[in-house]
């Protein structure tokens, strides 16, 4: 077990180096020149050269790369070009705001889709299964923007159930603000997840060992919740854990429409203003999170599947 985790950790090192190299390459080598963007059209060559020197862009690339690594390790990405705020503080402020609505939506969607998938798998081919699949496909076919506009127009504007947009930190003040984004996120994710979990469960139900479990006289409840579910946990874990980094970054579309000051909103603004250090910091943090959760997925496998730790 420990052996497996250590080996898996070692595998992650080259991936991390690769990520930093690629990110560095995009921003510092092929990306636009931040200095000319910052100084505008009327800057003369001397001004540009001074600025480049001030920001360290005239140093050899290898040193710039080490500076970048230092930024990552110390979690100090400097200040935003646009707002002059500390980027680390911006991220630490923005991530919890995104999590305020992504986390509840994630948990609710997961619970609903896993339990519904067990039910539709149990009644496979029946009317309940068919209706659920039709609703899922219909839900998947509607673009996400339509849900946002529909929700804002009817639930918020016409019926006045929630504020149209905005955000207020603190509990319980935030509830009315996050309610609609949470509902929309759940609706958006349930169609795909349910279809995926249904396939996973159906795949399990036809396994020989499920027939063995039935032949022992076990009740359907035990067959489904013990024998089917534990095997199905393997693909479910992959699907669930790898979604967690996305919870931190939030949804660009939702945050923009609902005026939620999370990381999703920050990145849109940063892109609009060519605020390179902010984009770079978010890119690298997201990549690192993705790596960490990927690693976590593999470790969780070995807890669920006894065959994994041996390989």
């Amino acid at each position, binding site marked *: 077990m420990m052996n497996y985790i250590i080996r898996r950790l070692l595998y992650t090192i080259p991936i991390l180096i690769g990520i930093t190299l690629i990110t560095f390459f995009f921003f510092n080598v092929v990306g636009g020149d931040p200095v000319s963007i910052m100084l505008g059209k009327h800057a003369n060559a001397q001004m540009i050269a001074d600025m480049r020197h001030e920001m360290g862009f005239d140093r050899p690339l290898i040193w710039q790369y080490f500076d970048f690594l230092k930024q990552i390790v110390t979690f100090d990405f400097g200040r935003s070009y646009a707002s002059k705020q500390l980027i680390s503080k911006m991220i630490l402020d923005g991530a919890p705001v995104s999590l305020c609505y992504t986390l509840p939506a994630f948990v609710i969607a997961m619970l609903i889709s896993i339990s519904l998938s067990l039910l539709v798998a149990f009644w496979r081919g029946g009317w309940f299964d068919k209706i659920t699949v039709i609703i899922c496909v219909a839900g998947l076919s509607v673009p996400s923007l339509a849900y946002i506009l529909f929700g804002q127009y009817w639930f918020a504007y016409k019926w006045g159930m929630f504020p149209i947009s905005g955000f207020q930190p603190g509990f319980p003040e935030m509830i009315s603000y996050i309610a609609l984004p949470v509902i929309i996120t759940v609706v958006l994710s349930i169609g795909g997840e349910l279809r995926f979990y249904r396939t996973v469960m159906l795949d399990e139900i036809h396994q020989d*060992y499920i*027939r*063995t*479990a039935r*032949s*022992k*006289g076990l009740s359907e409840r035990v067959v489904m919740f013990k024998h089917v579910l534990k095997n199905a946990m393997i693909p479910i874990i992959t699907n669930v854990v790898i979604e967690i980094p996305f919870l931190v970054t939030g949804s660009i579309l939702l945050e923009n429409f609902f005026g939620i000051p999370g990381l999703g909103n920050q990145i849109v603004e940063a892109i609009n203003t060519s605020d390179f250090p902010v984009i770079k910091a978010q890119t690298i943090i997201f990549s690192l999170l993705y790596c960490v959760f990927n690693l976590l997925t593999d470790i969780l496998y070995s807890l669920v*599947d*006894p065959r994994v730790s041996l390989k």
Partner: protein
Amino acid sequence: MENTKPVLEVKNLRTAFRTEGGELIAVDDVSFSVMPGQTVGIVGESGCGKSVTSLSIMGLIPNPPGRVIGGEILFKGRNLVPLSQRELRSIRGNELSMIFQEPMTSLNPVFTIGNQIMESIILHQKLSKKDARLRAIEMLRLVGIPAPDKRIDDYPHQLSGGMRQRVMIAMALSCNPSVLIADEPTTALDVTIQAQILELIKSLRQKLNMAVVLITHDLGVVAETCDYVVVMYAGKVVEEGTAEDIFYRPSHPYTKGLLNSIPSHNGKSKGTRLETIPGLVPNLLKLPKGCRFQDRCTRKQDRCATAEPSLESVGAGHKASCFFPYKEGGV
């Protein structure tokens, strides 16, 4: 046999599956009975309905699309067909249990074998976890697994195919069933392991005084283990009788064909081609009028294409469904 009442009696069983091409009768009017302690073999090619017969007895036909549409399955005099799943569950894995063809995939990979054996002991015998574990160890010892008190915490992937089939047997026998249904228990195993597993089933049958229904396409396996043999073809019983009847005095051309297609090792047939039965098993949705075997039969006459033969006595306790059976003693 001192007890003359069958422990399991299948009467006119009919099992159908809904398919896109229409209703497919996979088991059509099959009857046989199993005495306590007896081993009955059900033989036939792939797709002849032998597995469906066994799953019907267990009540494990996937519904939909499958369904038992007629007949009775009398287990200790009680008809299982009309029973609810709940009532069946108290019999299944308890007095009536089953082992399957694929030991590699028939055990759940994410639970220890001990957990899986104990599951049915706790369910049916209402033992505590601790006692169930002792019982499971005892069962593992009984089926010849070395160091059972250590092996019990192994996962299936840590065992070989033969060992897994032993575990399946331990699981099936853990509640002392009166009848064990073994569906091709040795097909997926090496020949040497096959012999060991058959020997194990044979000795446990005597030790526990249970009846065994052995489903196989392997006549060698039947000859070694069975008292009574039922030969199935395209969903129907074409011949049944004692093992001696079937092997020394086969009546139905199909049985004879099956026996002729076994390679012999006495040198007589050296240098000659192995005999086969020409043609393929008919599509159950497009059965010919008359006898189901007519297209592959060497003794076909006009009558075979117009009427379907029924199972008639051709000797004491020996039946065949053929208008022109081989008479006892040869021709």
